[in-house]
């Protein structure tokens, strides 16, 4: 294996082919945190840039479990979709070329969830993203024992 190309240059090349999976999540993925409104609902925008087969941000972080309202924008010149996790049922939306839509998700925390575009093997080519829910288990559900190391 040659390492002479330098990690930065190699990642840049991989990022063009498959920004999230190869070039960013596994290397230096893009992240953003949802904004929390006064009503406790969280909001975020996720975009599919042109010719990259990625969701931006690749990792959306929610400060806690609950309701998040997403704006989804497809800036690509190809049709994609999104199948998103939500308690009750997965949420599905078609995203034709240059389109914009919304989704409302109910998610538990803590934990992380994958989502993706399930059309045209978009997932295989990298059009997947992660939603990471921060926070902790409620005290009444925790084990009665001295504090333990945890991730």
């Amino acid at each position: 294996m040659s390492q002479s190309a330098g990690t930065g240059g190699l990642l840049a090349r991989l990022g063009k082919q498959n920004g999230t999976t190869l070039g960013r999540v596994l290397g230096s993925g893009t992240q953003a945190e949802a904004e929390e409104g006064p009503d406790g609902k969280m909001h975020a925008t996720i975009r599919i840039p042109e010719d990259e087969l990625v969701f931006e941000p690749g990792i959306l972080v929610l400060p806690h479990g609950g309701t998040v309202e997403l704006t989804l924008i497809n800036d690509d010149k190809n049709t994609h979709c999104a199948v998103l996790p939500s308690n009750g049922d997965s949420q599905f939306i078609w995203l034709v070329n240059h389109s914009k839509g919304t989704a409302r998700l109910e998610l538990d925390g803590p934990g992380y969830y994958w989502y993706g575009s399930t059309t045209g093997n978009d997932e295989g080519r990298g059009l997947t993203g992660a939603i990471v829910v921060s926070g902790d288990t409620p005290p009444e559900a925790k084990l009665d024992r001295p504090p333990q190391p945890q991730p």
Partner: protein
Amino acid sequence: MATEEYVDAGHAVDFRTLSDLAGKAPATAKSVNYDRILKARDAEPHNWITYYGAYDGKRYSPLDQINVDNVKSLIPAWVFQAGSLGMHSGASTYAFEAAPLVVDGVMYVTGWDGWVWALDARNGSELWRYKHASPYDVSLCCGNVNRGCAVAEGKVFVTTLNAHVLALDAETGAPVWDQVYGDVRAGESATVAPLVVKDMVIVGSSGGEFGVRGHADAFKLETGERVWRCYMIPKPGEPGSETWPADGEAWQRGGANCWTTPTYDPDLNLLYFNTGNPCPDFDGAVREGDNLFTDCVVAVDPDNGQIKSHYQYTPHDVWDYDSTMENILFDQDGKELLGHFDKNGYFFVLDRGLQPGTRRAVR
């Protein structure tokens, strides 16, 4: 970036709206209650309204239309096909492990990764579905599975991989209440089929391979209010704690999870929990002693969650001999007995009172 106005993609929809399902089930579960479950096998053999078919765990049906002579002629009446969509945890080990319940023509069945379905038992058509979003990073020792549901008072009760217990409306699948009873960041999860006893739903925790302290929990059917929690590993000073190292922390991560459904004796008013392996599974040096109440049958008072007695099938297990196989309740020669097939290769018959010297036979 383009500047012209975006095409309106609308709002995301429930994935189920892309399928032809009714969205509603007949209200057959509304009248299921403790009294009906007590008499389930004899009074309504055409149904299967609780896990094991009855509280005694025999899994026996008195129906006789299918018998040893005609069983070879059975052919499928219908097939319900459940697909898998997108990425989910335990991708190499997900499976159906649930026994369906049937209530007057409606079948309630759970699947991997948070699925719950109500089906028309006559033809397999889907009436409603619920899908819990399961975090990808839950610790799952042995697969992305769920072992089934409970039904009572118009609700379907199910546990989720991330250790919630849910009550769903049995007619629509809509959530009624949702309680967290395990800590996923501590390595806990849930796969057990709940059991309804009196006005409570009883569940247990998974995670015995990940250094947790096993427990069972009870919640009110109507509201989800917590009634009790019963730990299967005693704290220092509690009965059984002498079976753990006195100067160590092993009890804090000792295992004894209740990931299979208990049986119940309404006359003795005792739940019989089947507890799992001690942790760590194979290294007994860090947990000298018998390690109660791992690999045990533990008799618990359902009214307050207190342990009344126990019997340990494998003291100080270093072979991962979960004793999670059900404890089957039966009477013989006027005696109230309990039978248990253990992973250690023995079949045990015990007096149900589980008093000292309780063992009657081991084969």
